[in-house]
């Protein structure tokens, strides 16, 4: 029934997602009407600062929002599984969701040490998903786990199979997480700050691995990060979130080369440039003020109080997400006026 409404190459279609948390007093609208799509073979990066709602969005897709206090209060999360059938994840029962999570949707988190179980060997942990979701026996699961460890570039994989997470470095553990996430050949991989805890030389290895695996498998990747450098490396398209909403969306080149929202411009301008000598570098253009609390968002455009382009009208009505070009849109009434 939903099928007809969704292009065949779209894996994930989030429509007007609302995820709220009960607070005392009131309600915190962590995600406040977010929509975007992820296509096959595509990496979509969701970028934002703390409090932007990017992680709550990814947790909503996985249905891992702690309830209560949180709940998905509205919207649809349309997901196309391996068999091509489209389902609304927001409405699946927990039982149905268990057959999706770790199977058709793979997950990687920021801190591999806390997401791996310390008392099972990595071979057992990778094998668990295969036995649970694909009904493999112990022996077949072990053989498949070994093949996966090799695929994610773990040296001496035979020996590593029987090791425990604490015996591995952070980079190796993240490789194990990727092996686990890909074990059941998911159509969607959700990676929430997967390289944030890693050193920069290890981060480069992991991004390289993710790119290579996507080219092999065609998996869609939803990549959550706060790091614009990482976005430029890995993403095909980018969604910029601020204060629970999408403020700009576009393909990676137009977004970085021709940002149309003052917040995106601000984020790019406030980072120093690695290639620029100290003598020639201008003073960093810091964005004044702080990210507003979700309990107390300003009226109208939530970025207006920090925006150098704001005019009186910006503080009364919330602007719509307007198309700038076919694959680029911005939520700013003044996007045409920006230089």
């Amino acid at each position, binding site marked *: 029934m939903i099928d007809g409404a969704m292009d065949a190459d779209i894996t994930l279609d989030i429509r007007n997602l609302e995820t709220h948390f009960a607070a005392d007093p009131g309600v915190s609208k962590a995600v406040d009407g977010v929509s975007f799509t992820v296509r096959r073979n595509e990496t979509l990066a969701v970028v934002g*600062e*703390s409090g932007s709602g990017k992680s709550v969005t990814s947790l909503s897709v996985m249905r891992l929002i702690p309830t209560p206090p949180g709940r998905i209060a509205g919207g649809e999360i349309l997901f196309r599984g391996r068999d091509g059938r489209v389902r609304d994840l927001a409405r699946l029962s927990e039982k149905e969701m268990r057959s999706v999570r770790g199977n058709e949707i793979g997950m990687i988190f920021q801190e591999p040490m806390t997401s791996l179980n310390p008392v099972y060997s990595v071979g057992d942990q990778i094998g668990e998903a295969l036995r649970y979701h694909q009904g493999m026996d112990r022996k077949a699961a072990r053989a498949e786990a070994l093949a996966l460890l090799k695929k994610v570039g773990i*040296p001496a994989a035979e020996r590593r199979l029987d090791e425990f997470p604490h015996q591995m*470095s952070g*980079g*190796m553990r993240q490789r194990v997480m990727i092996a686990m996430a890909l074990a059941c050949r998911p159509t969607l991989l959700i990676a929430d700050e997967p390289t944030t805890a890693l*050193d*920069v*030389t*290890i*981060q*480069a*290895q992991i*991004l*390289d691995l993710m790119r290579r695996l996507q080219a092999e498998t065609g998996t869609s990747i939803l990549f959550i990060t*706060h*790091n*614009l*450098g*990482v*976005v*430029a*490396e890995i993403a095909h398209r980018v969604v910029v979130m601020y204060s629970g909403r999408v403020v700009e969306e576009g393909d*990676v*080149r137009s977004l*970085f*080369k021709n940002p149309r929202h003052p917040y995106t411009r*601000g*984020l*790019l301008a*406030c*980072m*120093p*440039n*690695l*290639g*620029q*000598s*100290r*003598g020639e*570098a201008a*003073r*960093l*253009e*810091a*964005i*004044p003020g*702080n*990210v507003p609390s979700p309990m107390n968002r300003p009226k109208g455009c939530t970025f207006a109080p920090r925006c150098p382009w704001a005019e009186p009208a910006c503080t009364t009505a919330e602007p719509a997400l307007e198309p700038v070009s076919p694959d680029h849109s911005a939520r700013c009434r003044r996007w045409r006026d920006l230089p």
Partner: protein
Amino acid sequence: MTTQPLLQVRGLEKKFPIRGGLLQRPVGWVKAVDDLSFDLNRGEVLGLVGESGSGKTTAGRSILRLIEPTSGSIRFDGEEVTGLPPAKMRALRRRMQIVFQDPYASLDPRQRVRDVIGEALTIHNIGTKADRRDRIAALLQKVGLTADAMDRFPHEFSGGQRQRIGIARALAVEPDFIVADEPVSALDVSVQAQVVNLLDDLRRELGLAVLFIAHDLAVVRYISDRVAVMYLGRLMELAPSDSLYDRPRHPYTRALLSAAPEPDPDAPKQRMLLEGDVPSPMNPPSGCVFRTRCPYALPACAEPAASIPREVAPGHVVSCIRDDVIMA
């Protein structure tokens, strides 16, 4: 007029015991910092970069003797700091301060901002009580907060504002030298720039010497006059910022710079991908500690001589024996 550096560090070493067995006796040692030498001039910013386990934080804290160095010499304004008796050390601390990474953990939640900043003034007996109030107000203004922040508690402030309070606390005693240990890493990108600008303004205005410890290579270039690169406790390269970033000589520095993701989808991606992980600091490779991941390593790199820093151009120090690579 003195031309002597404000801070001279020579052969700094810090070993931590690894304890094991029933009696928790040392069963081995980790050399967190090994044979580190550098100078820091008055009013100068030296960036100290390295990945986790490189020893950069331990180096900063050993210099202030917040942890006791194992051996080596630290001279501050001509005076040897190691072995200084506690009373003299306390007096010297008035001139050397630290700003910590985590603005949530480094401020006492039960102290009002007035006491967070005022404590140092009390300890060092600076000013009268009435004086102190004015001084605290002036410090808060200097770091971009208003004087009414004085009567509030740390939890009432955002991360960026807390870091400003941490900076005001460090400046309260009018130091000559500050160790800034990852001062912006815990902050959101949009707030990082505010704090980087503030540190840059303050050090210009006050003539502060700063040891700026960070892993963000772009931020370090922006703020530093010279930059030192550490790996597994040892100095790999030390040079004026532009030389280090535009003409890095050590293979590790080159790999580190090429791995840094740039916010530009058109940036040329000539990656020098390093194989493997950082070796365990309990059992570092002999000779050059980087040789196990270095694409240019030779058998001679395992010899002790391979790890000795050499000046290969004026002010440019490199610990690598592959002249054919580093001079190319």
